[in-house]
């Protein structure tokens, strides 16, 4: 994926440099954070001055500098992983089992492993920094018997527990990253300078790192209490170390009630998370910074870098998003660049810029409308009777080339989410308790035609005797991870669950029942997934309507006027589709606020933002043009809807 994007000039020239700058800043911020950590871990209330001077002497020692270099390496690695794994469209798991699939995905596994190893490295550096009894993994001791005085090396469990804690926190950070979509890069509505944005979010970052470290350490201690003996025995065997029986083992209640140990674990975990979160935050801030594309260029070789060209591109996603963001801002704030959009081409006198931009925005909005209508149809017919024929065709096509689009005319763009949505809506909601009694046609009723029965049967792979190849095809859909999982990752564990409905048709196996239960959950997620990329639509709406508003006084050649009917029609249709979508159960329920996690939750509320923006956008046009709109050609139904807006009744 990355190598494919590499070819794009934008990734090479802008995104990579932004990532490098963010990593450089993270490395520059490392010394003060480390100094604070050393101070916190070595400070003693009884000898304040002495401990401060000890800290200073440690910070200048050789071992400190070596571990600092290691930490820098870790930060660079984290920054690289951020660049490799970031996404502007969140991947939303529509069921718990899909989430599990995401967690076990090979790509995610590599990420988790890397974080685990880096956690161990950071924890080792922490152990060096804390010093004292934590510093080494082995120490000379006399065997417990006391009979022979020959010295042996014993395992320093304090050091060992710290290293394992690093691994655990790294792993849980990576896992939580999947659950909370931490690799999602949100774009803020309020533009601020990078320094001010960083300064503004630093306090919440520190707080969230500290709380998350607390929870991680709590979980870690529970795990270590029960399972700590396994790695301990393993490391003793590998390194040929002994256990000192005169010291309390740490996987006991008495051993774990060491307050100093708990404190050091918490501070180390907080330090680890803080440095990683700072790197992530800087990466987000740098990557989402506004990039100003030229609207038109006088040189033909730069034409591919101009806004009208860039905005129509499909890959990479970040380029498209930044272009749309720039469009929204220029249409709002800069009259000079707006005039370039409205200008005519020099020989020929065609409004190429405006045409390209408006066409792209409209196709984005139409795309969303189509998606909403299709989703609504599948839900309304309960995924069976009406839309299943297309649905099953869709499945095969999406299985064979899963980047191929199903509904929308624009194939590659925005493919990820609809696939998972439809998978959920067809497979998952087929037995949703809210709609099932009303709309599901009973396949065994005498009124159901055999054709219908045949069609409805595959919708539920656990129902009856199914000999359809669709079952085999559909199963990976359960995982509903986007494209990549089905392309390069063999869907893990799913073939094992296939035979169960065939062997015992009347009685589904326990595993199947369990799976069935799991996938009924997260009702709101399908709605979230449907709007996962709606930030692009919001910008398209804003950009388009601000341009239309400005055209009222700035458009000298009337280039916008010709497009006004189609813009209004497109927005009204979308408005209707959005209104219909919000009447569905769960669509308008608010997500639970998750405080104290860095994972941004803006993707959960994108549908509300889109609804509000859409309404505002239509009002922007109606208040600007007022009664002039009655001269615009449109269907009677649209005119009726528009009249509602003109009378301020929506």
């Amino acid at each position: 994926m990355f190598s494919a994007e590499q070819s794009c000039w934008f990734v090479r020239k802008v995104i990579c440099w932004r990532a490098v700058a963010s990593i450089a800043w993270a490395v520059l911020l490392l010394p003060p954070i480390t100094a604070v950590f050393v101070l916190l871990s070595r400070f003693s209330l009884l000898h304040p001055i002495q401990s401060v001077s000890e800290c200073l002497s440690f910070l200048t020692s050789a071992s400190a500098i070596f571990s600092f270099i290691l930490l820098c390496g870790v930060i660079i690695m984290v920054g690289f992983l951020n660049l490799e794994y970031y996404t502007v469209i969140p991947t939303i798991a529509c069921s718990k089992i899909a989430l599990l699939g995401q967690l076990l995905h090979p790509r995610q596994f590599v990420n988790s492993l890397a974080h685990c190893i880096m956690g161990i490295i950071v924890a080792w550096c922490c152990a060096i920094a804390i010093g004292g009894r934590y510093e080494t993994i082995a120490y000379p001791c006399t065997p417990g018997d006391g009979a022979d005085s020959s010295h042996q090396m014993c395992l320093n469990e304090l050091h060992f527990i710290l290293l394992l804690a690093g691994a655990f926190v790294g792993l849980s950070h990576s896992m939580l990253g999947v659950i909370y979509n931490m690799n999602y890069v949100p774009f803020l509505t309020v533009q601020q300078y990078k320094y001010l944005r960083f300064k503004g979010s630093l306090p919440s970052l520190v707080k969230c790192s500290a709380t998350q470290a607390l929870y991680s350490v709590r979980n870690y201690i529970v795990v270590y209490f029960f399972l700590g003996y396994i790695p301990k025995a393993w490391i003793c065997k590998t390194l040929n170390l002994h256990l000192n029986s005169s010291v309390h083992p740490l996987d006991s209640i008495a051993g774990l009630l060491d307050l100093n140990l708990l404190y050091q674990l918490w501070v180390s975990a907080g330090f680890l998370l803080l440095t990683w979160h700072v790197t992530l935050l800087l990466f987000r801030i740098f990557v989402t910074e506004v990039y100003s594309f030229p609207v038109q260029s006088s040189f033909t070789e730069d034409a591919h870098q101009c806004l009208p060209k860039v905005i129509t591109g499909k890959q990479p996603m970040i380029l498209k998003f930044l272009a749309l963001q720039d469009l929204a801002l220029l249409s709002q704030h800069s009259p000079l660049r707006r005039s370039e959009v409205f200008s005519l081409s020099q020989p020929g006198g065609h409004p190429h810029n405006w045409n390209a931009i408006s066409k792209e925005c409209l196709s984005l909005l139409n795309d969303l409308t189509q998606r909403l209508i299709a989703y609504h149809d599948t839900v309304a017919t309960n995924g069976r009777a009406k839309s299943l024929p297309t649905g099953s065709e869709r499945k095969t096509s999406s299985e064979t080339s899963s980047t191929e689009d199903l509904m929308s005319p624009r194939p590659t763009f925005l493919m990820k989410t609809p696939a998972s949505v439809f998978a959920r809506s067809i497979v998952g909601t087929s037995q949703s308790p809210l709609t099932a009694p009303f709309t599901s046609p009973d396949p065994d009723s005498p009124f159901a035609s055999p054709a219908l029965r045949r069609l409805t049967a595959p919708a539920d792979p656990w129902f009856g005797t199914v000999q359809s190849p669709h079952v085999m095809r559909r199963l990976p859909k359960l995982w509903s991870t986007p494209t990549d999982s089905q392309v390069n990752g063999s869907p893990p564990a799913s073939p094992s669950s296939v035979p169960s409905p065939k062997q015992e048709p009347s009685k589904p196996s326990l595993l199947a029942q369990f799976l069935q239960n799991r996938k009924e959950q997260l009702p709101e997620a399908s709605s979230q997934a449907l709007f996962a990329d709606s930030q692009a639509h919001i910008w398209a709406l804003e950009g388009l309507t601000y341009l239309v508003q400005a055209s009222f006084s700035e458009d000298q050649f009337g280039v916008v006027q010709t497009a006004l009917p189609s813009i209004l029609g497109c927005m009204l249709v979308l408005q209707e589709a959005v209104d219909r979508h919000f009447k569905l159960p769960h669509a308008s329920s608010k997500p639970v606020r998750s405080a104290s996690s860095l994972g941004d939750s803006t993707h959960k509320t994108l549908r509300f933002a889109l609804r509000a923006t859409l309404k505002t956008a239509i009002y922007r046009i109606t208040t600007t043009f007022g009664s002039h709109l009655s001269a615009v050609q449109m269907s009677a139904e649209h005119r009726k809807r528009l009249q509602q807006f003109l009378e301020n009744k929506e």
Partner: protein
Amino acid sequence: MCSLALFPAPLPAGQSTLCESNNELLSGGGSTEDRLKQESSPLSLYFPRESLKLHCRTESSSKAAFLDHSETLWMRSAAAWRDGGFTGLLDEITNSNTEVPKWMSVSSGFTLALIRWFSSFHGSLFPHLTMSSEDMLAEFSQVLNWSDCVVRAFAWHPHADKFALALLDDSIKIYNPKSATTPTLKHRLQKSVAAVQWKPLCASALAVACQNCLLVWHVDPCSLSTRPSSGCAQVLSQPGHSPITSISWSPSGSLLVSASPMDTAMMVWDVAAESCVPLQRVGGGGVTFLSWSPDGSHVLASTPSALFRVWETRMWTCERWPCVKGRCQSGCWSPDGSRLLFTVQGEAVIYALTFTDSPAGVPSCTSKGPQAASVVADLSETTFNTPGGDIIVGGEIQSLAWDSAGERLAVLLKGDPQEADRPAVIAVFKTRTNPVFELLPCGFVQGEAGAEARLIQFSPNFQHGALLTVCWSTGRITHVPFYFLSAGVPHFGLGGSPSLPRPQERPADFNQSLFTELAS
């Protein structure tokens, strides 16, 4: 500079202002047909104080009505933590010294004393922090004598002919002359409403600044329900950001800013996503009043100290404007967003700041603003000789309101509550912004005998001139139309249409002594 001495003398007691027509203010006596005429208009409302069901007791005093129930220390501590936070917990532990170990009560008492000492030190820097939240709302509200006012907040809808008003009993009513239903909004969290404002470019959303949170109501204009459920309200709250004294929507309807004198950060809300971005600036000790310029480019944010800020909204950087005397009490923007008028507590003058647009298209880091504010009007005390005796008018200014065409400026003068013969009055100026800025006297707007103006606001879409809505101390709401020919029809747009020369309506005899930018 324009001063009150140029104004026509105020009306004798018992007369009230009806409207402006043919360039002069018409008044009506206390005669019944005049009053009937004014009251027959559907939007004139009257809320007698007696009709409102007020909370006769505050919640803390209702505790005394119940028998004292002895709870365990744990329960009480938890309750104290919930109600009063950390200091409440410490207070509880200190007070129950018979049940807790001695070292604990002593240490918590010591900590409490330390916190109080520290906060008193902090409070001496920013005296407003020691006020109770009710007092703070009354102090910083744009409404005169807020705590005793029947109508506590008022807002016209920016596009439709309807308005919302918040009453003393914490309910909000929405009036629409075209509809028979007047929805009443009540919510558990809707207490001490300091400000309401309709969302621009939206028919239904109304933001309400409450004591502890911000509510955004979605009132369907077609709904026939008179009591929308509290499910129609979004609750936006942020720890430490209360009480909220001022809110302002961006004219494009996308963002909402809120301010609290207790919080040094002002919040920029993305209401649909319920997320906020705090914009923190420590100087000043809080934010009291916000006003978004009609073109959306600047936000005025005043603080409790002698300092206010003007934010530009593209990259959210700010200019600091230290005042000499007191805090900035009120401010308003000209319709094109290029000029800010503001008043300072303790001074009886109106200042003006002019913002010129940065070169088009070039995003400048800070908009190049003016170097100093200029005084455009002097409203110090002036004595008028009338047949009924001398009348003294003038003094400190409570609030400013500018109509959406930029032709009339209403100024609410505080008066002196101690002296009966110096009530609050409204002085109205005629203004011009093009080609040069001018202020000309228009007259005083007075109500019926015994009524003092509390709150003023211009209607944003009145076709025949300007419509000033006044809420009086008696609980009456009246609308005073100013009929004049305006060249600039209210225009919602980014650049603004090419402006035509305004019809001249300047009285010839005042010409030489009036304020113009060229003369000063």
